[in-house]
């Protein structure tokens, strides 16, 4: 039995949640989200920078931008570089960006012709090392591409955020963090279903508009099991290295 277990643990296909965890003292590589209950669920206490974050949502406008704005504007104050928006569904409204504290002159809007071009532009921007963050709205992205983006983000030390449709949840991805936004009973819930270096978690009503501040929930056992296989399953390792 022990032998079988060791064999399994030694297998390259097995990804362990504790791997790649942000160690103490490496806090420079994360950015506080600006939402304390989210910070509590993320390793290191913030968004993992220099890597790929996938944000899935069913609809545009349920808070998918608001989620990242505090961290983006804080990053912009710390570091020089572009904030690149690739294939946004609408035009980001400059006065609103300013309200959130994001310097408008550093926004770069890119309108590529299709997903392929968008991914190329994303990789180019990430690896150029001149971007604080790259936000891209991408429908189709296979696991190999996500790994390339993950590597490019590490190379260029920029934060990649891919906004994708909710259906992408079933796909494998090399992103360091995958989350899903969905309208909850009160406010928007953030379902962190793959967190490298920490357990999956659900934060309901993340920006607490209604004043209620429930603590981050651990998954109910039944649901958690399927999620765990999704994130920690055998065969996922290639996507998460």
């Amino acid at each position, binding site marked *: 039995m022990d032998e079988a277990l060791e064999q399994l643990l030694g297998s390259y296909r097995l990804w362990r949640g504790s791997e790649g965890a942000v160690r103490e003292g490496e806090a420079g590589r994360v950015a506080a989200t600006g*939402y304390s209950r989210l910070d509590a669920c993320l390793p290191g206490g913030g968004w993992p920078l220099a890597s790929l974050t996938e944000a899935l949502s069913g609809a545009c406008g349920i808070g998918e931008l*608001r989620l990242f704005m505090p961290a983006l504007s804080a990053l912009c104050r710390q570091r020089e570089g572009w904030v690149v928006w690739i294939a946004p569904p609408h035009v980001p409204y400059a*006065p609103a960006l300013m309200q959130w504290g994001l310097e408008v002159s550093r926004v*770069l809007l*890119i*309108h590529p012709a299709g997903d392929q071009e968008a991914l190329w532009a994303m990789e*180019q921007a990430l690896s150029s090392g001149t971007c604080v963050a790259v936000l891209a709205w991408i429908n189709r992205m296979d696991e190999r591409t996500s790994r390339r983006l993950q590597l490019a983000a590490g190379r260029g030390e920029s934060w990649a955020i891919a906004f994708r449709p909710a259906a992408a949840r079933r796909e494998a991805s090399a992103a360091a963090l995958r989350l899903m936004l969905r309208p909850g009973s009160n406010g928007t819930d953030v379902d962190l279903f793959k967190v490298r270096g920490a357990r999956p978690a659900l934060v309901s009503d993340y920006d607490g508009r209604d004043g209620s501040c429930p603590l981050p929930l651990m998954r109910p056992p039944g649901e958690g099991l399927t999620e765990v296989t999704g994130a920690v399953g055998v065969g996922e390792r290639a996507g998460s290295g």
Partner: protein
Amino acid sequence: MVSPPEPDSVLPAERGTPRPRPERGRVTAVPGPARQQPLPLGGGEPPAEDPSPSYSRQRRSQLWLCVRLPGIALEALGESAAATAEPVAVVEEEGGQAVVHLANRAAAAAGIGSGQTLSAALALAPGLLTCSRRPRRERILLESLADWAGRFSPLVSLEAPDALLLEVQGSLRLFRGLERLCRLVTEGLRQRGHRALVCVAPTPLAALWLSRDGGGRVEGATALPQHLNPLDLRVTGWPAAVLRGLAGIGVTTIGECRRLPREGFARRFGAARLQALDRAFGRLPDPRSHHSSPPRFREQIDLGEETRDEALLAAGCSRLLASLEDFLLRHQRAARRLRFRFFHLRGGATPLTLGFSDAGCDVEHWRSLLGIRLERLRLPAPAIAVELATGRLEHRGGDTAALPLMADQAARQDGGLPRLVESLRARLGEDAVRGLRCLAEHRPQQAWHEVDPLEGMTDGGAGPSPWNRVRELPAAAGGGEGDDLLLERPLWILTQPQRLAVHEGHPCHDGPLRFVEGPERIESGWWDGADTARDYYVAETDAGVRLWIYRERRPPAAWYLQGIFG
């Protein structure tokens, strides 16, 4: 008389050779007292051989170096034509007949020489490859070599079609003697693939004529007649009719010519001929203009074969870029725009333009941009040649290096930010990459505009309107969002407001909307034709999507969707 330069020497790198300093305002020659008495009718020594007071006495003497490129017609056709082992002849039209202008070594071995008709040449070598002469390319090549020769002399003059004249008296010390200078010139040209003949004489015409005879080196003015007199008159390049006329009276060499009476000679064969003779012997000044290269770069290379292959095209362009880099360095210029043209055999050319935010000379960056563009380039036909031209060149500023103390500034000056924009534009197109600016304006539609992202990278655009104040971070605000003056704006805006359906007087968007905040009245713009009078509300759909909607205050008082709080 002929003293060929010695080829056996180790040469310093070309770039290491210091460029002679041009002497501003220097007059090549001043008019001297040209003697007006006629030449003797015959027999006696011409007066030019007397130790006469010529201008060279009053002025520092000159020394002219003539570089003649006998093979320029072939060399201008490209490396492949010059280097091939096949017999090749350059042909030109002369009196309605195709005549061989120049034959390469293999063709010459078959007995083909200049002046032969093409049919005769083809009879001697049936496999002869013929190319027509390209005077424009010869000129371009000669000019580029003149640029190069500028490192040896402050005064380089073109002598079309195949020679350069360099005034080298002032350069002798720098290059440690005439011998070494000649060697450097020949060796340098040989490395560039050109066969050159180098002659030296105190006057430019004498040097040129000597070079046409096969070479020679005359250092003192007194030795000129001795070297020039025996030369055949054909070296002067005078029109055939003049030469025929002179031959008709039994005059075939320069020496014989000079024994003719001056006035009669000028009347019969033209004053210009007499002047040329006087100039060659230093009796008249021969001012020469300095060749200065144009402030643009234009160069063309042959690809050797028709190709669509990206790697071959890239290699060709890369060579052009290397040459451009050399040009820019030499002239201390910077380029902002590069135009490539890919020529097709059947005519026409495909252009490719690279533009940069900043004039520069960073060839490595250009190469990477070009690589992106070449990937996307769809040539309608294979290309046979590539040309690279620049627009206006700008002066290159000195590089400012920051002190180590000012690390922040150094990072800002590294130019990395525009590069990303340039490389994205190279592939996606100019309009696909945009920037944003705020305007001080109450109407939401007019409060922003798209701009070129590189425009005014330092200033943040117009000031904010009072409602667009920077809002504190939620974390820092500590939940105290009690600022009533802060009217939240949506992160997404629709470029065209979308009309909302109305159900029982209630606006709908995926079901009826629930009002969260409002109204906020915005009424402005009566002066510019975009008069706006609207009541804005924040509304929420059932799915939790928050929208920014408004109602027109004028009839028909319709509801519109303006933005989405992302």
